């Protein structure tokens, strides 16, 4: 009786299993299939050999992604710590304020950065009022990185904060009692203990930064093509699905490798709660 009812309750997962085969697994098989065929459907390595042309774009995407991730980490770590030291009520309000911008369309927010950064934009006209010459900011590498940091910073703050909020405070005190100065306490005690949050923050910022395609077009003015831009163009402008698929395949493998490397640092539970 009990084994039969447990079989029945296993069966309620079957609609989802069918769904995930049809719409998660099958689409990925199509990415592989399109990567190794031409427009007529014949097998070819052409799309893969054509990739060497895009090596500089891949390298730039990875480099920008690393830069954005490091900057996010540097900004987020102290803020997460500051938030975790507040009273519960203040913590909740500050967390809400960190998450709130994410509910706004990232397209509009990125567009609004254009208005801020333009040569005749808001920041430069404010600078002009206090007698500083305009600084050229839009369409530079810095502007693209800024766009990434801006859009993905909450993804770094949240996981680090949620680990720090649960941190055992007596451990920190023990560390201080053992004679650690402020810096040692942070380096030998707080950083190692918040490592799981740091690692998931890094993946949550790195993956979207490497694969973004809108930010670079708007804030980089088209001169800093990233791999996401190239993929987007294959699907929405030149309709070369096969090349687009092979580019995506490489991007996916690249990210899987970097995630595997990151996961070596922590033995994370695969079924952990989201944030």
């Amino acid at each position: 009786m009990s084994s039969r009812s447990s079989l029945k309750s296993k069966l309620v997962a079957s609609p989802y299993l069918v769904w995930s085969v049809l719409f998660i697994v099958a689409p990925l098989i199509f990415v592989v299939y399109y990567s190794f065929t031409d427009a007529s459907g014949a097998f070819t390595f052409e799309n893969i050999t054509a990739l060497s042309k895009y090596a500089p774009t891949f390298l730039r995407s990875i480099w920008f992604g690393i830069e954005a991730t490091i900057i996010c980490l540097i900004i987020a770590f102290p803020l997460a710590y500051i938030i975790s030291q507040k009273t519960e009520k203040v913590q909740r309000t500050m967390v809400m304020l960190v998450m709130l911008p994410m509910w706004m369309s990232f397209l509009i927010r990125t567009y609004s950065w254009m208005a801020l950064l333009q040569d005749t934009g808001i920041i430069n006209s404010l600078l002009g009022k206090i007698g500083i010459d305009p600084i050229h900011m839009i369409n530079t590498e810095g502007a693209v990185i800024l766009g990434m940091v801006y859009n993905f910073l909450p993804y770094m703050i949240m996981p680090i904060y949620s680990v720090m909020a649960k941190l055992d405070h007596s451990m920190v005190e023990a560390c201080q009692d053992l004679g650690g100065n402020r810096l040692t306490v942070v380096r030998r005690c707080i950083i190692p203990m918040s490592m799981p949050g740091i690692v998931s923050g890094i993946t949550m910022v790195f993956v979207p930064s490497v694969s973004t395609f809108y930010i670079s077009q708007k804030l980089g003015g088209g001169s800093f093509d990233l791999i996401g831009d190239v993929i987007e163009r294959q699907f929405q402008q030149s309709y070369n699905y096969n090349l687009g698929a092979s580019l995506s395949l490489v991007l996916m493998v690249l990210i899987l490798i970097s995630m595997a490397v990151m996961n070596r640092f922590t033995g994370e539970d695969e079924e952990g709660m989201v944030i």
Partner: protein
Amino acid sequence: MKIVSKVYTFLVFLFLYAPILVMILFSFNSTSSTSVFSGFSLEWYKALAEDEATLRSLYNTIILAISSSAIATVLGTAAAVGIDKFKKGPVRSGVMAVTNIPMTNPEIVTGISMMLLFVFVGRLVSRDAVLGFGTMLIAHVTFNLPYVILNVLPKLRQTDRNLAEAAQDLGCKPVTAFFKVVLPSIMPGIITGMIMAFTLSLDDFIISYFTSGPGFQTLPIAIFSMTKKRVKPDMYALSAIIFVSILVLLILYNIAQSKSEEKTKKK
């Protein structure tokens, strides 16, 4: 040290809110410029009320978010209940690995992979305009599912298994036992998952961009095609309205939460 941390917090929040403040400010601009403020007016709010295409896409976005999060919640909760019964082993880890794919894969890859599937099937049945509401709904349900499952699973693990058995011993049918005993105890996880799914669907641009057709536009897609040229400030006005309504909702939620906490403390 205290002052340093206050200044630091202020600067980070200034950074996070600068573009939103700009957006709100310029929604009240009297000209259509988004960089020079020339005077206060409500012109763009009036223009928004008359902009049928934008309102239509807002309506589409909400319909899509409601239907996709509802489907994902039912499908995902059932999935979690089933997966919870799976024994630890290769099958369970395999299912969990597949479940994690839409969360860990870059959104652009999820988007194009589904587009390839839809286009391929569309060619098989020789229909050109296969992309539309249906394909977007499938895509949204797919990327919403892991968030529901991963919020419900931990709640199921916390639920005492003996409870359902006790209910059955007392004469409940398994289905009734589930709805009367298990469901209430996993409800918080289901609701969190549903809210997450709803907001993700509301805000999604990248996956929608690759799976939508000309017949069904959502707000993020309308904004995208607008930002290719110039954004009219009525879009700023709409964003300002959305921002303020979310802010109000969050504040109300916060107040409700701290009130219920005070109550439990008193007890």
